[in-house]
């Protein structure tokens, strides 16, 4: 049991990061904090992929007679794309927050909802 818990320590940590992100996203009213939560949520997935590809004792996939165990490089390559997607999402999100701030003069979601309902 203990071995199981410690052996999967990376996954426990990733789940923790993910849940902190998701909780921030849901619980905060401030739109900037929401985006921060969203970014954490995405980062956890990136960590998940990268740790998934690691083989204990494995090295980078190079042609050499000295090494026989290699880590899978594909998840890292995939995550380069996912990082780009994540950054783009965050950038679009911040751009929207700037426009919301200009239009509503606040970035608090509950105040925005009150303003929307008054219209």
């Amino acid at each position: 049991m203990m071995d199981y818990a410690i052996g999967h320590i990376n996954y426990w940590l990733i789940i923790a990061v993910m849940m902190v992100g998701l909780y921030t996203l849901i619980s905060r009213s401030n739109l900037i904090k929401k985006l921060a939560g969203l970014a954490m949520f995405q980062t956890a997935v990136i960590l998940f992929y990268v740790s998934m590809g690691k083989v204990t004792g494995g090295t980078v996939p190079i042609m050499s007679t000295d090494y026989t165990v290699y880590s899978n490089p594909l998840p890292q390559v995939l995550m380069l794309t996912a990082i780009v997607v994540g950054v783009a999402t965050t950038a679009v999100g911040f751009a929207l927050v700037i426009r919301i701030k200009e239009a509503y003069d606040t970035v608090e979601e509950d105040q925005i909802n009150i303003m929307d309902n008054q219209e």
Partner: protein
Amino acid sequence: MSEQLTILLVVIPLIFAPITALLKNHNISWLITLVVSIISLILSFIILFDVSDGSHVIYELGGWRPPWGIEYKIDSLNAFIALIVSGVATVTSIYAFHSVPKEIDKRSYGLFYAAFQLCLLGLLGIALTGDIFNLFVFLEISSLSSYALISMGKSRKALTASFSYLVLGTIGATFFLIGVGFLFAASGSLNIADIAARFSTFADMQLVMTGFIFIVLGLGLKAAIFPLHSWLPNAYSHAPSVVSIFLSATATKVSIYALLRVLFDLYPIDYWQSLLLPQIMLALGCVGVIYGSFRAWQQVELKRLLAFSSVAQIGYIVIGISLLNETGVTASVMHLFNHALIKATLFMGAGMILYRANTTLLSELRGFGGSMPWTFMAIVLAGLSLIGVPGTVGFVTKWYLLEAAISEGKWIVVIAIVIGSVLAVAYVWKIVEAMYFNSKRKAIIHGVNSGDINVAKAPLSLGIALWIGAAGCLYFGLYTDLPFDAAQSVAKALLTPTSAIN
């Protein structure tokens, strides 16, 4: 020859979008968008023609052999979806010529059309790719550009609608990514055909099931399947008309397509049958139909009414999939096409009303139908299709859906469809009543006597685009061969277990 065409569908918008973004002039950027859409439409037609005999068109990106490289494997379903997307894009582009200058800020014409092309590119990419991670990337390309497009709406509510779509859309995409990760951990492959072929070797791993649940939830969020639809009504009702038309007709359809691929091609059917997913989807579909139609009936604003009606229509598609027989799946695939046609027409009509009356509030549109009889007629025609009156496209799908439900003995589904149709009569009647049967009163908004004849008559290009849609509703309702044959061959291919092909 035609394997090179498949990649052109993605590459052409990708080349032209950055060029368009640099342009300031409206007419030139519009022309580029129109040409790109028409080229995509022609290419989709050629590809659909090539695969209509059941063969596959395969393109390997960069010459890397699958399963290592990314592979585009086009069968009739891919080509059918690509045809829907590029067809709607073409009609929307025609419509955009007069609608965009009216609704979009002068400085961002080029950017608007660039985002539109990127969205088209993303949706076409989803429709063509045979690689599940590539699908995620295209999903995000189309979503990111649609967040930008939605936020360009006139009202400031468009911004908050776009933000909540961004949050939910990203959660959906991330769920999808987690699911792909689990599946990759189990299978070591990202190629859909490769995973499906070797599925039995890792089918009993817990990872595979967890991944499946994440993937289905993520795509369900993107496809706005009830109860994951909360982003949809706000996003569609506050977006600019052109964006409402394009997204309502394509974005959710393409996500449904991705779901079809996952359910029928990636995973074997009996795998998710044992997870009780058909029952869950059936229940959600039925509730979605009734809930969406009821909420649509409650609305007082035309575009919001249409958006809720979309939730109901997605419910019909989900019901068809979950019945799991050939007629049901055929009805669903056909409804992807039919609903794209109907909703595009209705949103074009709403856009024309917005163009002339400056409002889409039903109470402000009293007696407005008489002032624009042609537009009104097209709206009624599409509304009748939504209800499912014989002779229109809506009838065809509802007929097959009922037939499928009865042959399965699922009477509760029949009842849900009938209730949905009755509610559809009620909300379409609400539009007709407000626009035609209420006493005529000129709408006066912000001091502008907008129903007045002096105020811009809707330009011809809007009317042409609208009537292409309306005529399509009628034509494909009477001559059902083209979409029906395509949908039936798709359904047959989907329901055949993948192992039987290999």
